[in-house]
């Protein structure tokens, strides 16, 4: 059990504020009247709604199917009726609306028949498909579809790391979950281990959570190591925890899988257990409600519960609240609309007050002290990236490995000039992404335009060729008519022969057909026939002369 630990550079020690919410057990939220379930709760393509307005749905019924590879399903959190499929407020820093299925709960909370799975006898690929349909996504905050992470692919995964560090201040949902549901969580970890086929399993928990450490150690079998890591923000960052536990650095621009290590959040392991061994899709998660509320604590919340209902469950806001944060104070964002629901990504809701969240001081000029570089856990130079991002010189900012920034906020935290460095980096990143999107669109337009030009040219050529052929033919026909003594080409000769044969056949047929009912006719009819014959004869004669 004497695991050697490594120390990454940088990091900060903000006030943890864990005691506010980690003293009470996880409470179950009462049912809400209305649930708003967004279709885009994970990284990648949004789910495609598979229900219609007016449908009755049951708890755990799939209401959005995974669309594309990087996607996962979405399920109804309770039984009720679908009342709308429309753009609704979602927890997103922009405050923009996004497509969601709105369910009016009927209060019966009737579930579909859950089907537990015998995962030991199932091959990993079938297990992964099951996870995709169960809507599993990483609950640590990045919400990457879990079934993709459980696909070892070409890279052999030798180590599985369970992230229970929970380094962000105020958040305690993983802490409570580990204290209360460690045995179930470990069964989830067993399933992960089976799917990845890896030997080593490490569970990293910060040493400021002794109860969680004890609970996990009590539940863990001998071959799974529970490691206490020093409390240091951002020790729970995937790359940072990997380094602390193994001493392996994740290559720049890469993932930990590139070095054979896969990292999961402990909450994901618990949801995986529920999905596989109970058969319940991801329809609830533990959310920390803390800050300026009457009864802070952790709640087991159905996905889609409006955040306003969560605050009421915690006794409501105290007077003097000054806003809400989704996620932690270091990496979270300000909530725009309390009608937005809890999604798979929401791990914490902090109600702000001016005491703990004072108005940000005025930004002062950079004094080039280098404090940000010393605090950066990704070994970057934030001040360089800041200058170039601020000047909108994105190419140079990227040259300083802007995309290795994990947006942890340590640089902004230590900056003596109160510069919101991370805001600049987020701005620069989204501008670069936009440019890349535009470049892809331009490349597509260029190739399509070039193909159109090529197509028009080809059609013109084909037409010209056709005309040329037709002209040649008519010329040849004209020349053979004009000069009968000229040697006729064998083709024309053949055609003539065929024509002649056809004419003869027609002639013969005409002759062989004997007129019917021509005997014993009354004189009137006979006369008529004679007249007709005479007319025909004259016509034939004239046509012959014409020819």
């Amino acid at each position, binding site marked *: 059990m004497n695991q050697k630990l490594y120390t990454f550079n940088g990091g900060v020690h903000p006030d943890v504020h864990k005691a506010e919410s980690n003293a009470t057990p996880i409470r179950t939220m009462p049912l809400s009247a209305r649930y708003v379930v967004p279709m*885009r709760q994970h990284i990648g393509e949004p789910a495609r709604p598979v229900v219609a307005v007016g449908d009755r749905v049951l708890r755990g019924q799939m209401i959005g199917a995974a669309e594309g590879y990087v996607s996962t399903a979405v399920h109804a959190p309770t039984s009720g009726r679908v009342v709308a499929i429309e753009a609704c407020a*979602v927890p*997103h*820093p*922009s405050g*923009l609306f*996004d497509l969601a299925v709105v369910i009016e709960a009927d209060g019966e909370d009737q579930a579909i028949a859950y089907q537990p799975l015998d995962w030991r006898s199932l091959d990993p690929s079938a297990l992964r498909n099951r996870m995709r349909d169960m809507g599993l996504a990483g609950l640590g905050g990045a919400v990457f579809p879990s079934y993709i992470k459980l696909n070892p692919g070409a890279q052999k995964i030798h180590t599985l790391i369970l992230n229970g560090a929970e380094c962000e201040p105020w958040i305690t949902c993983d802490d409570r979950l580990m204290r209360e549901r460690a045995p179930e969580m470990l069964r989830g970890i067993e399933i992960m281990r089976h799917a990845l086929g890896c030997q080593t399993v490490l569970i990293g928990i910060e040493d400021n959570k002794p109860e969680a450490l004890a609970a996990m150690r009590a539940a863990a079998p001998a071959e799974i190591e529970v490691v206490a890591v020093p409390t240091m923000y951002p020790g729970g960052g995937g790359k940072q925890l990997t380094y602390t536990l193994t001493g392996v650095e994740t290559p720049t621009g890469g993932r930990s899988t590139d070095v054979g290590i896969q990292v999961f959040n402990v909450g994901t392991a618990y949801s995986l257990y529920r999905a596989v061994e109970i058969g319940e899709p991801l329809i609830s998660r533990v959310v920390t409600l803390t800050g300026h509320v009457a009864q802070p604590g952790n709640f087991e919340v159905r996905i889609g519960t409006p955040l306003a209902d969560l605050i009421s469950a915690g006794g409501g806001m105290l007077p003097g609240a000054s806003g809400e944060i989704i996620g932690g104070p270091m990496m979270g964002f300000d909530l725009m609309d309390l009608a937005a629901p809890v999604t798979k990504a929401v791990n914490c809701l902090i109600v702000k007050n001016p005491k703990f969240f004072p108005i*940000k001081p*005025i*930004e*002062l*000029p950079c004094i080039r002290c280098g404090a940000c570089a010393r605090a950066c856990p990704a070994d970057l130079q934030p001040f360089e990236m800041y200058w170039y991002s601020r000047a909108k010189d994105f190419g140079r900012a990227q040259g300083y490995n802007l995309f290795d920034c994990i947006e942890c906020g340590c640089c902004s935290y230590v900056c003596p000039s109160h510069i*919101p460095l991370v*805001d*600049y980096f*987020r*701005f620069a*990143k*989204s*501008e670069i*992404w*936009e440019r890349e*999107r*535009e470049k892809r*669109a*331009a*490349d*597509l*337009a*260029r190739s*399509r*335009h070039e*193909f*159109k030009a090529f*197509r028009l040219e080809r059609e013109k050529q084909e037409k010209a060729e056709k005309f040329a052929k037709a002209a040649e033919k008519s010329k040849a026909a004209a020349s053979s008519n004009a000069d009968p003594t000229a040697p006729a080409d064998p083709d024309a000769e053949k055609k003539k022969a065929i024509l002649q044969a056809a004419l003869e056949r027609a002639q013969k047929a005409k002759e062989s057909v004997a007129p019917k009912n021509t005997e014993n006719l009354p004189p009137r009819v006979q006369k008529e026939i004679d007249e007709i014959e005479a007319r025909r004869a004259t016509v034939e004669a004239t046509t012959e002369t014409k020819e």
Partner: protein
Amino acid sequence: MISAILVMAAIGLVLGGILGWASIKFRVQDDPLVEKIDAILPQTQCGQCGFPGCKPYAEAIAKGEADINQCPPGGADGVNRLAELLGVEPKPLGEGLEAKPKSVAIIDENTCIGCTLCIQACPVDAIIGAAKQMHVIVASQCTGCELCLPPCPVDCISMQVIKEDVVNWKWRYPIHMMKRAA
């Protein structure tokens, strides 16, 4: 004295020969200027610059026949990047040209008579349809060039500005509290 001159001359000749050979053998095929300019242009193929497409405009810029500020879809950003590439001063967009928000064309299906005129006008073949059949625009391939608007005999095509959603939303430039305080 003479031998020294001869030796130096011989060395000069040999080295010169090697350099000459190397300059032919290891010549780097530099990207032609037209390609570089074309890579900056937005490929809308709208013809607002007065040339029939982005490539002809790029060729004209390379020859010095056209100014760098004739491309409204590229906007001020595009002009700046062209200026940087060509080593000239950036300038505002040409007279009568203005950058519009990014849009896509939408066909009103109730009005469309299926005449195929817009299909012929589309520079990127982003319109699907056939004679007397309803036409539809593939939004993901539409460059927003507006070339399909004039040929339509029933005016059933309209331009719709692309709305901001949670996918194409961008973080804003941080507000300068310094400036606000000053």
